[in-house]
């Protein structure tokens, strides 16, 4: 949906730009630049802050901001030479420039794919037929081409067939196509509401009745998982998603003696069969991924085997299509807003609505003006995800110093500091692995140099870190999540020991002097700058003068090469274990 009505787009923008940039700008209205949108958000923020007699923390230092940008946009800490370039960049709009650059890297797409994989199907948990690999690849491709968010959602929600034809079906396969589970997840991810609780009882706070939850789930009543055999792949079992022409969802009774109740689809209390709720919208065209002849043949066989329910379609059911049409439309006020909230929270540490998937009619919204403004820009821009992220990193809220605690303080009545702080956050486990590997020179194993050994090492690091640090999205809380096992891994694991196999071949001579990953990190750096280089490679900053004193003295204490190696390894270890390295601040 690259915006069906160009005229409306332009029209609204004319209004917006008229409002924001003075009525004098009658000249051809251009879509506002992200910088302009950010400026307007800053104005709204300043206004709110001054009304609440509060103010934001001071701006972050250039180095800190750059590290944060790299972590948030690319999912890994920056290289020392990038930091150098950034700090020496004198251009006025360098944040804008560098965020553009981060946003177009393949690492950004990969990071987005990883984040969305966790959001959609969780970090853990596998079900029959689920193919995380194809799902990740498809997501990565989507983010590389900056697929509009409504298209992305549409493709996921209307997915059907086998994962090899339509990798988006992995979303439904993860929930085994159980209507109740699919409905709960769809509501949570795409509407930002938690209605699953209403599965067992009426929602405690939001006004969701059990019947309404099952009514929502009834949209998925005719979506089912099927089993097939992969003829090309040794007849192994494969699973896909298809539709059946009939079938209703029944709501299990709460008490004995009651009968199960058949439930018709409804949108949160609004019956589905009232057409006015979703009319007037063009469906978003979907690429056809029809079944192959073989699929059809297999299907007819399976049909015979299956009593009762006849299978007619490998596409999405009419019912599901009806829901999705409404769900991803501009008329659905939750769809775009919940995404904006999710994105904002990813960068700012907390959302306009918290928890980020707890939107309801009466949920408390912090700074509703900013949320609404960002949302309408997001919709008008054609659901442009990269643009949204760029706007967020340009705001004053994002660019302030990270402190835990409060310059502005929790504003009474709001129970929120109105984004006058940006919290210090522990690195996500995958970000931490990549950062450790980068800071120890272990990423990208070069094929010519003990590549197999290095690859095995990298895989082990991923496994160990994610196992020890990974929590499922649902369990995430805004509090310290560290465990003794994590500390032990960082203290005593090989990943911080500077003893890892070297990853690149081009410093063979250097490696003799500084074997292992230390050689890679210090390659081409004069001994006098070794300490500095280790700081840059890990913390993304130069040592303070006090630190320089201590660490240089320690480095100089080495009498010979062997001793120097171990002394530098000690410094490297301390940096990799430091709270500053393990957090984004």
């Amino acid at each position: 949906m690259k915006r069906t009505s160009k005229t409306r787009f332009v029209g609204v923008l004319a209004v917006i730009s008229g409002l924001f940039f003075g009525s004098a700008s009658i000249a051809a209205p251009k879509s506002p630049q992200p910088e302009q949108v950010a400026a307007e958000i800053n104005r709204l923020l300043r206004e709110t802050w001054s009304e609440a007699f509060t103010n934001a923390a001071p701006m972050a230092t250039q180095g800190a901001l750059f590290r944060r940008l790299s972590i948030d946009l690319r999912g890994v800490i920056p290289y020392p030479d990038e930091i150098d370039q950034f700090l020496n960049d004198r251009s006025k709009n360098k944040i804008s420039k560098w965020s553009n650059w981060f946003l177009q890297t393949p690492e950004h797409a990969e990071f987005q794919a990883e984040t969305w994989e966790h959001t959609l199907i969780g970090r853990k948990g596998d079900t029959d037929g689920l193919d995380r690999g194809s799902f990740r690849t498809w997501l990565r491709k989507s983010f590389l081409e900056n697929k509009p968010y409504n298209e992305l959602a549409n493709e996921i929600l209307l997915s059907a067939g086998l994962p090899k034809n339509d990798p988006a079906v992995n979303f439904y396969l993860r929930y085994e196509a159980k209507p109740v589970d699919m409905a709960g997840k769809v509501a949570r991810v795409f509407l930002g509401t938690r209605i699953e609780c209403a599965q067992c009882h009426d929602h405690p706070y939001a006004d969701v009745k059990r019947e309404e939850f099952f009514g929502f789930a009834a949209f998925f009543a005719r979506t089912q998982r099927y089993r097939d055999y992969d003829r090309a792949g040794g007849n192994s079992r494969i699973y896909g998603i298809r539709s059946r022409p009939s079938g209703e969802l029944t709501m299990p009774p709460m008490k004995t003696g009651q009968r199960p109740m058949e439930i018709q689809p409804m949108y949160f209390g609004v019956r589905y069969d009232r057409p006015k709720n979703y009319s007037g919208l063009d469906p978003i065209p979907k690429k056809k991924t029809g079944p192959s002849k073989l699929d059809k043949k297999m299907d007819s066989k399976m049909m015979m085997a299956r009593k009762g329910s006849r299978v007619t379609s490998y596409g999405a059911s009419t019912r599901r299509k009806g829901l999705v049409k409404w769900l991803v439309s501009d008329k659905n006020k939750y769809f775009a807003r919940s995404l904006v909230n999710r994105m904002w929270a990813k960068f700012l540490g907390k959302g306009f609505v918290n928890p980020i998937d707890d939107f309801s009619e009466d949920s408390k919204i912090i700074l509703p003006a900013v949320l609404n403004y960002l949302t309408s820009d997001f919709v008008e821009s054609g659901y442009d995800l990269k643009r949204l992220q760029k706007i967020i990193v340009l705001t004053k809220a994002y660019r302030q110093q990270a402190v835990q605690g409060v310059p502005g303080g929790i504003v009474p009545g709001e129970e929120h500091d109105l984004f006058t702080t940006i919290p210090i956050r522990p690195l996500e486990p995958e970000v931490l692995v990549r950062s450790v590997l980068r800071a120890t020179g272990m990423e990208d194993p070069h094929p010519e140099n003990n590549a197999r050994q290095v690859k095995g090492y990298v895989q082990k690091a991923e496994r160990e870190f994610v196992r020890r640090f990974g929590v499922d999205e649902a369990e995430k809380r805004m509090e310290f999540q560290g465990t003794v096992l994590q500390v032990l891994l960082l203290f005593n694991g090989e990943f911080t020991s500077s003893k890892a196999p070297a990853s690149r071949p081009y410093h063979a001579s250097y490696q003799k002097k500084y074997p292992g990953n230390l050689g890679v990190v210090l390659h081409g750096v004069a001994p006098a700058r070794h300490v500095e280089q280790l700081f840059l490679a890990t913390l993304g900053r130069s040592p303070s003068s006090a630190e320089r004193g201590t660490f240089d003295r320690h480095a100089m204490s080495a009498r010979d090469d062997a001793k120097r190696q171990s002394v530098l390894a000690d410094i490297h270890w301390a940096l990799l274990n430091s709270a500053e390295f393990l957090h984004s601040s």
Partner: protein
Amino acid sequence: MKLGNKEAPMKNDNFLRDRRDFLRVGVGGAGCSMVLGWATGGSTTSLQAQDANRGKTVVGGAQPWQKGKAKNCILVWLGGGPSQLDTWDPKPDHANGGGTKGIDTAGSFQVAEHYPGVAAESKDVCLVRSLTSPEGDHSRGSYLMHTGYRMTGAITHPSFGALVAKELGKENSDLPHFVSIGGGSYGPGYLGVRYGPFQVGNPSRPVPYMQYPGDVDKGRFNTRLGLLGMLDNKYLSSKRGEFLAGHRTVRKKALRLLDSPSAKVFDVRKEPESVRKEFGLNNFGLQALMAARLVQKGVPFVEMNLGGWDTHTNNLNAVTARAAILDPALSGLMKELRTRGLLDSTLIVCMGEFGRTPKVNRNNGRDHFPRCFSALVAGGGVNGGTVIGSSSNDGQEVKNRPVYIGELYATLLSMLKINPVKENKLAIGRAIKMAESDEPVTEMFI
């Protein structure tokens, strides 16, 4: 009062009492969350004191949970869903018995012939033969049996071990509060990872990362800590806040564990063969020995794991082979704890995600069966030698005293002197009770 299962019948005769309890819980619950609100991160002991006071001052008579005697708990998890008919509820006289005979025990019941060791220890064993659950799927069943709640997706409930770790873990202990041996346990859910399990993968290998790396000795490690201290002091003082305070606390704990002589408790593989033999000379036997040693050192919750119970085919062979591992480990564990005077204060629970079909299938196997199955509870002040509930002659139905999983959890927590209706506050503002039911099976321990 909701029970662990939707089909739970209302108990009319309890209605009045329930109402009263409800009022009391309502008031006490509010008090409790207020305390939580004021003293976030405060010690659990003060909360426990509050709860204890609440029970005494508000009601007068002691609540069942206040009569709990156990201080530690060992969960022996049988992954895959063990057959009740070939373990604790044999049916030798029925076709559904599947060829397993029963043997007499020191208690008032028979167990399957494959368990002579457990039979001999049965004066401290209580069998529950009327467990009933709605979940016949491995992941959903494991979730329910590990947490006492059904899986909903909206929130992740803490596992049994995490609940106990939070309530009974002592801050000044060198060792973790929840140790999981052999994998397979569930996480801390909404309680946060600080109550999660300390994973000991394979008991026959050293615990990973408990030794300084390669060429680093204690002296050099201290040098490293000195450098680290300098970096952190600066960062932490400029950034204040709970996040980082938490970081510091956990690091201190790790250092204490590294330096602690108690950490040797994980080296059970080095104990003499004569000792290890008592538990069975295999990996699971080592798990049992480690569990005993951990409890001796005051670790409140240990989970052991023995898989391989998903016996869809050749059930009899499979359960016999499993029993040869489980029986010595379980009875060895009980003997060891009794010798050390710890059996009365250590609750042992042995169960899996569900039971298996009484009717033997075409492949001589048994399939998933949650409608009626068994668990073994031993030590920890249990009324030994007794049976709770029973199954019908063919094993297809609960005959009397159905025990829902919420009630099982209320019972187990009560036995550990933990108030099952105490609420934990969630980040999203809701409060959830420790157990879904507030009706412990009192005849099990009072």
